[in-house]
């Protein structure tokens, strides 16, 4: 057991650290209706990694370049005739194709493609943890800085603007935090599953919460449960860590959904009977 723990501990701690950031960030992504944007950024990380390896740049720089590319693409494509969710879906798949093409054709990373797509948290060792901890702390500090303005913008943009909040600057800042999260979450859950780790805890929490604060706290707990059970089950079942984390989070979502629907039905029947 102890030997297992020594192997799993770095991955477990790295995943838990990511969960600390993914939960509040995921809540904001949902409140600001940016799930599709997050998905496009997440898919774009693959191209970022590919370009970074090809041009021998730091991975973070490659991902930052692609994030800027996504924002510029959005500005260029913006057209009231084209629904934004469809535009983002197109950007996401296009970036994924270019990412796969770059990794398989222009670099010697063919063997690692699966790891980039679905993540491999178990490859993290103790030496990686300080960097992840610093990145997560920076992300949390940045979130703390923009939190109030973001919640106000999610509530009512005009009222927020009257209070002096600049929506464009806030959006850019938020996109930056999101891109940073995608960069550090890539190795945990992979390009395809980042948005799952981001959105599922927050979405499940929404079913249980009646205030923004409670939603964040419940999302934090769910993210930690998902990471813990996901990391251990990936070892026992010998499957990709990203897959198992996201599957656990999806199961938690489904169970919560069924539970809340049943509870609502039962309480409606009971109140009908008492009347």
């Amino acid at each position, binding site marked *: 057991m102890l030997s297992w723990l020594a192997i799993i501990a770095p991955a477990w701690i790295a995943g838990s650290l990511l969960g600390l950031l993914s939960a509040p960030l995921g809540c904001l992504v*949902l*409140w600001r*209706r940016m799930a599709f944007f997050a998905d496009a950024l997440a898919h774009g990380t693959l191209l970022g990694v590919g370009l970074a390896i090809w041009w021998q740049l730091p991975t973070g720089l490659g991902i930052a370049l692609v994030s800027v590319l996504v924002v510029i693409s959005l500005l260029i494509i913006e057209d009231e005739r084209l629904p934004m969710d469809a535009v983002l879906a197109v950007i996401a798949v296009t970036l994924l194709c270019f990412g796969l093409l770059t990794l398989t054709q222009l670099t010697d990373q063919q063997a690692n493609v699966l790891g980039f797509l679905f993540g491999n948290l178990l490859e993290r060792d103790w030496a990686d943890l300080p960097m992840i901890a610093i990145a997560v702390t920076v992300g949390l500090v940045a979130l703390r800085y923009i939190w*109030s303005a973001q*919640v*106000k913008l*999610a*509530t*009512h943009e*005009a*009222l927020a*603007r*009257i*209070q002096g909040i600049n929506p464009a600057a806030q959006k850019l800042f938020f996109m930056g935090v999101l891109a940073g999260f995608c960069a550090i979450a890539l190795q945990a859950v992979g390009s395809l599953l980042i948005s799952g780790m981001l959105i599922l805890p927050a979405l499940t929490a*929404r079913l249980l*919460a*009646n*205030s*923004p604060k*409670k*939603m964040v706290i419940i999302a934090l707990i769910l993210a930690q449960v998902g990471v813990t059970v996901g990391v251990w089950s990936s070892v026992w079942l010998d499957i990709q860590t990203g897959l198992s984390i996201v599957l656990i989070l999806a199961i938690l979502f489904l169970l919560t959904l069924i539970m809340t629907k049943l509870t609502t039905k039962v309480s409606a029947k009971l109140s009908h009977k008492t009347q």
Partner: protein
Amino acid sequence: MTYLVSPSTDPTLTKALLPEQASTQVSNQANNIASTDPLLSLDKVSYSIEQQTLVSQVSFAIAAGETVSLIGPNGAGKSTLVKLILGLLTPSSGQIIAEQPLRLGYVPQRFSVSPILPLRVQDLLAQADTRLLSQEQQQFIYDQLQLAHLLSRQLRHLSGGETQRVLLARALLERPNLLILDEPMQGLDPDSEAWLYQFIDELPEFLHCAMLVVSHDLHWVMKGSRRVICLNKHICCVGQPSELVVSTEFQKLYGHHYEQPYVHKPHHCEHHAPSELL
């Protein structure tokens, strides 16, 4: 469902809650007692988008403490003008000058919160910057607007009237010196309308602010405003209610008897984009 609430005019209660204002408290006719100090001036403000002029050459000023009503048919540019004053849109030409530091309060025409955001009334009210009000003054607003039993309710489950009360509280908690109400009666039942009119008419001294009320309700406009601006992309007519009803432009829009039910009579004006005017 009725929540007709009469704003308290009991001087003892006011004194107890607001000791610092007690000496200046008046049974408030204040909404029409305006100072002559200008608060905000609009100078030939126009707004066009895609070759279409929505607001043309609008000039007027609002004095501190004054209640101004903005009326006009649908599509007259009332909401656009409100957005320009709020700074949500930038004028295509002309300028809007804040003569004094502005603290804007705004009650929007429509308000809905996405179901994904579990926002309670208390969460929305916590978003207001309440630094300019004491705890007692904040409590006074909560009491007057009867918010205590609403605080833990989800915003999206409130009725139209309850939502208006909460939005009004949010605006007043920031102690605005210009409160903009964009069609505040829309979607309200008659009881709620009556309550809101009375509340606006009797705002206590410490909340006394200039108000710009966009309204389709000519009865209240004529009774409750010191000055009425009639907009139909440009300013058709402006003045005290008694002057307005005899104005030809007003009669073209609303007929000879404004007491009659509101009927929009199409009114043709030539409007030019600002560039065409130069």
